[in-house]
């Protein structure tokens, strides 16, 4: 029984590492780190290194728990989660608006009783595992599942994930890569039936408007061939029109649709 929670701790530490590194790496939304603890507790320039240090520390502990029974890693895990509990309490007191950042950007909800209870439970699990006779993932049992269930109940990230799935941003507000749109176009029947008439397979202009991405090519007659690709769905709608170079109003010679 003592070793039953080791797999849970290892998986959570690895997940924490990956999520934190991903948040640091994809800091595409400038300032995301200023809303995540414990990064918010340190000065701006140190936020990224603090998150990376935290992630590396978790990875080292996870590796230690996985391959050895050496007490340093086990007591280190206890100390890590105990310290996390203190940091979350401090975070809640000093920055009630900040998320715990335990799993990176997903943990952006303000720190609440559930997050703090979770780190207390994890501290208890780590303390229990100190005297486990075997390392790693070998102790999986019903107790492990019970531990997972308790952590799931105490994880606000699950609510956040469900809310994100249920209330996914509409297509008009979701980023979409130009290259993905071009790939969808080139997989369509409309493209296959008109590709031969184009001067080049690369568009000379491309832009996105709402849920459509437009690609403009030049055909052998010197006219513009415009394709509009709908950005959602595996086999999206593709529309196309040929517009004379000197046309100053919309004069589609024909419009084809493929689904």
């Amino acid at each position, binding site marked *: 029984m003592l070793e039953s929670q080791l797999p849970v701790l290892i998986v959570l530490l690895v997940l924490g590492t990956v999520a934190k590194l991903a948040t640091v790496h994809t800091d595409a*939304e*400038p*300032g995301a780190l*200023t*809303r995540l603890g414990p990064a918010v507790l340190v000065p*701006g320039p140190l936020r990224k290194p603090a998150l990376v240090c935290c992630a590396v520390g978790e990875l080292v502990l996870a590796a230690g728990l996985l391959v050895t029974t050496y007490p340093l890693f086990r007591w280190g895990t206890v100390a890590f989660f105990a310290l996390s509990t203190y940091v979350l309490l401090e975070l809640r007191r000093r920055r009630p608006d900040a998320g715990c950042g335990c799993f990176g950007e997903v943990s952006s909800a303000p720190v609440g009783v559930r997050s703090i209870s979770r780190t207390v439970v994890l501290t208890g699990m780590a303390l229990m595992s100190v005297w486990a006779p075997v390392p790693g993932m070998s102790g999986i049992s019903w107790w492990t599942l019970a531990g997972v269930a308790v952590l799931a109940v105490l994880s606000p990230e699950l609510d956040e994930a469900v*809310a*994100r799935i249920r*209330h996914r*941003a*509409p*297509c*008009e*507000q979701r*980023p*979409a*890569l*130009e290259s993905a749109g071009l790939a969808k176009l080139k997989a369509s029947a409309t493209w296959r039936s008109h590709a031969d008439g184009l001067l080049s397979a*690369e*568009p*000379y*202009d*491309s*832009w*996105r*408007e*709402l849920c*459509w991405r*437009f690609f*403009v090519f030049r055909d052998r007659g010197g006219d*513009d061939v*415009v*394709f*509009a690709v709908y950005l959602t769905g595996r086999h999206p709608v593709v*529309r*196309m*029109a040929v*517009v004379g*170079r*000197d*046309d*100053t*109003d*919309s*004069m*589609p010679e024909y*419009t084809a649709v493929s689904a």
Partner: protein
Amino acid sequence: MRILLSSAGKGRELCDARGVNSTERRRILAAAALGRDTRHPGPDPEGGEPLRAVSGQIIDVSPHLIIVDTEQGVEERLVIAPWATAWHGVDVAPADLPLGAAVIIRALRDGKVAERIWADITRMTGAILSVEGRRDLHVELDCGPHRGRRGVVIPYRATGRIRVRYPQLEPGYLFDAIGVRDQGVGQALLPATSQPGHPARAVPTPPPAYGGAQQRINGTATWSDAFDCDERGTAYPMVERSDAACPDAEVSCVGLPYLAIGSLLHIRNVCTERAANVPIVACGCMAGRFCDRCVECGTSPRGRLAELSPSSFVELGGELTKGCFNARVGWG
């Protein structure tokens, strides 16, 4: 404004060899592909007597007539309405404006009657990089990747007024003020809005779109002088970074949809009920960082939806010295 686009790693100018404006061409091509009518830029007719913005340099001015040399080299002669007012750092009589000053005039009657004149007006919008000085403050701003850096001076007499609305006058925070150009240097005299509480690189995320995409969004519309003199258009925050070659785009605290340079935005000034279709001509990455409100008529929801050129702002009934109007934007 010269705008470069990049697609597949290649830069292009928005004018082709035939002189056809490529933003216009995009609208034609999109309309053809989707089988919709091509919409055209311009004011909605139901907004009352249309306003016209005239910009240029003053050649001559008297209590009843003002003559300006426009960017196109045309001499415009406008009658000054008896109720007309002018601004040149402070409110002045139109006849007291200095010759050679760069003016923007709000004109009625097909652009023949001037009713409001702004002289040498400029707007300084950006993220604060440094603040120096004890009496007059010298502020360096990062105005975004397209507009670069800019040094502005806050004269001692205006520091109190600006500090009230901009309490965090320190690096990393946002700054937006209106003032006059004096020998090429911008002098900040009026705070444009109240300072957002967040730093420039910590823009709040937009609320989740529970009901799907909205067709109309309320917020605030502002103006910027980073456009060509007589240009009609707007900068818009939510353009794809790769399309607009703008690494700081796609940031806004409002759930705006993606549009492109060349798309038309329907902008309504909620305060004056004037509306117009305005083309997007630039990336509004700096406007997107301001999660502030406009209190021109009531309190608007947070977030800048569009950053208009001065001419478009004036033609929508905006007052340049107030800096914003409550706006509703739509598309399609």
